């Protein structure tokens, strides 16, 4: 136990973090959100960066954001992948299960415009083909800072 605590102490605080949004008010919970992630056919590259967000360098939860296990608790649907045909209905069902108000963030080149998989018979090519999209974060995969920034912009934008 002592050595575990010592390790935690040694690691200390890492990463510069990301500045909280300027105007944070209780009325719109700017900058905070419960996020439900759905992989709609990604190559798993974007998932690696989503996992990195949970690490000590980025501290997603310190910013008031967290990934939820159920769409019932979610404010934001984070979608990766070019929307494979086989995931389209599960993706729509997940969105339908979320309570309003809710927003969709397309994460990565594939979710934004199909990426290298665009044009395949097996994909629909972008999240906006099946769901309303409120934010886009391109990249292959997008860097964690960019993901955090997109999430903040989405939660701080005026109400839809």
């Amino acid at each position, binding site marked *: 136990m002592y050595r575990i605590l010592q390790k935690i102490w040694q690691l200390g605080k*890492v990463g510069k973090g990301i500045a909280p949004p300027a105007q944070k008010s209780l009325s719109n919970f700017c900058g905070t959100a419960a996020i439900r992630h*759905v992989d709609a056919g990604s190559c*798993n590259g974007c998932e690696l960066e989503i996992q990195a967000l949970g*690490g*000590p360098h980025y501290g997603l939860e310190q910013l008031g954001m967290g990934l939820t296990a159920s769409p019932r608790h979610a404010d934001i649907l984070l979608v990766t992948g070019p929307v494979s045909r*086989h995931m389209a209905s599960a993706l729509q069902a997940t969105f339908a299960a979320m309570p309003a108000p809710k927003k969709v963030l397309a994460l990565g080149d594939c979710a934004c415009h199909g990426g290298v998989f665009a044009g395949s*018979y097996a994909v629909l090519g972008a999240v906006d083909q099946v769901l309303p999209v409120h934010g886009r974060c391109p990249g292959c995969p997008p860097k964690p800072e960019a993901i955090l920034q997109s999430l903040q912009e989405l939660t701080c934008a005026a109400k839809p």
Partner: protein
Amino acid sequence: MGKVLTSLERSGVFRPIAGPSGRYRGVLSAPEWLQLAEEIHQEGGRLLALWGTEADEQLPPSVHALWRLPHAVYWVSMHLGPDHLQYPSLSRLFPTATRMERAVYDLLGFTADGNADRRPWVRHEAWPAGCFPLRRQEGLQNQLGTAGDAHYPFFEVAGEDVHEIPVGPVHAGSIEPGHFRFSCVGEKIVRLEERLGYTHKGVAKLFLEQDLDFGLRLAGRISGDSTVAFAWAYVMAAEQVAGLQAPVRAQFLRALALERERLLNHLGDLGALGNDAGFAFVLSQLLALKENLLRENEHFFGHRYLMDYLTLGGVQRDLPAAACQSLLETVARLRSQLTSLEVLLAEHSGLRDRMVGTGMVVPERARAWGMGGLVGRASGQGWDLRNQLPWPPYDQFACPLSVQEDGDVAARWAQRWKEIYQSLSLQEDLLGKLPEGSMQATLVTTTLHGEGLGIVEGWRGEVACMLGVREGRLLFCHPQDPSTALWPVLEEAVLQDIVADFPLINKSFNLSYSGQDL
């Protein structure tokens, strides 16, 4: 070597593939197809891949298999008659062939005679039966929809107290999509059936007719966590077609990239395993170390996960001497940080309690399944291309084969630690002996013609890429992830464990969905 292999080699059916030794190519008749399978089975060999290719004016419809013996890899093909799209099933000898043959049928309509499982595999209800997307046919898009896969006939377990738990395709955590059907008695799992294919992206068709540069971008995105391994297998195959070798310096840099990919994934997996055992400390410690490596990757190699670092004929950018020094220091620092952490965790009773004896695959079963790669080595199966069939630059370094016999989650955990230290030593060797010279050979792709096989030992196991090129365009390309042959083993590994242990066992395998669904 058995008599079938000997006679095939003597009669010139097998010809050695240019490049590192031990790789062979051959076109077989139907009897030879089965004889070879039987002999490889007797010799304890493994089936790495089985796939099909469609006909065009110059090529007959064909099925292909990639076989592995300890010191040889065979890419064999068999032509099918245009009116007889059938071939003998290998599922009787090699249980992992079952799903591969189902996938061949879904994509091409070639039937495996003797495969009792006629259910679709990569095809979901979004495609009508009888629609074969890899065949050159008109109006494909109009036949396809987006219906969910609601009527798949899962095997049913009978019994009074048996209940089913359907999980997925959307999981509670942030992982890839797939469906798991558990049949349980109380908390105990008596059967698990996987239903995958949710991330099917039609990769095989996307490759068709593309130039080699697009092919490389796509190969690097078959499974994002193995982007270096796939890119290397692909460029190895393409360079074979071109009759060219990357400069020695580029080979070293590629190996460095592959070892760094191994390191990143092992660190992430160990962290996630600790987390799934309820010990978040492990995750935050290891993610912090992983993040440092990711930033270093971006700084020195241009991409956090090294995507698109490999090019046809070389690598994207060179590594200056100062960078080598800095990377060497990283290796030394990481080794000492990890050693102290490992000692501490090895003694942690809570962690041991969750991992020891959980998710067991005993060596005998692992052999029957033909397990390879990291999880195979954790179940006593000594397969590692870096040791047995080394390709440049691995042929210049000692890559000892390490195995464990226990076959449980704890063994897969320990195996990762072992391979991390091995990889660190290898990185030191690579950096210390990095030769001078060019990092890029010139490759004119527009006139290329021929076939190529690339195979490397990625962090999960053998990653292979088989391709055909005509006038600089891809005629076909089959990327093979080791996950395909390992997913069925997971169904067996969880038996007699409880449902709550599934995430831990699944994580200890950490197989790719995208790489299997293609």
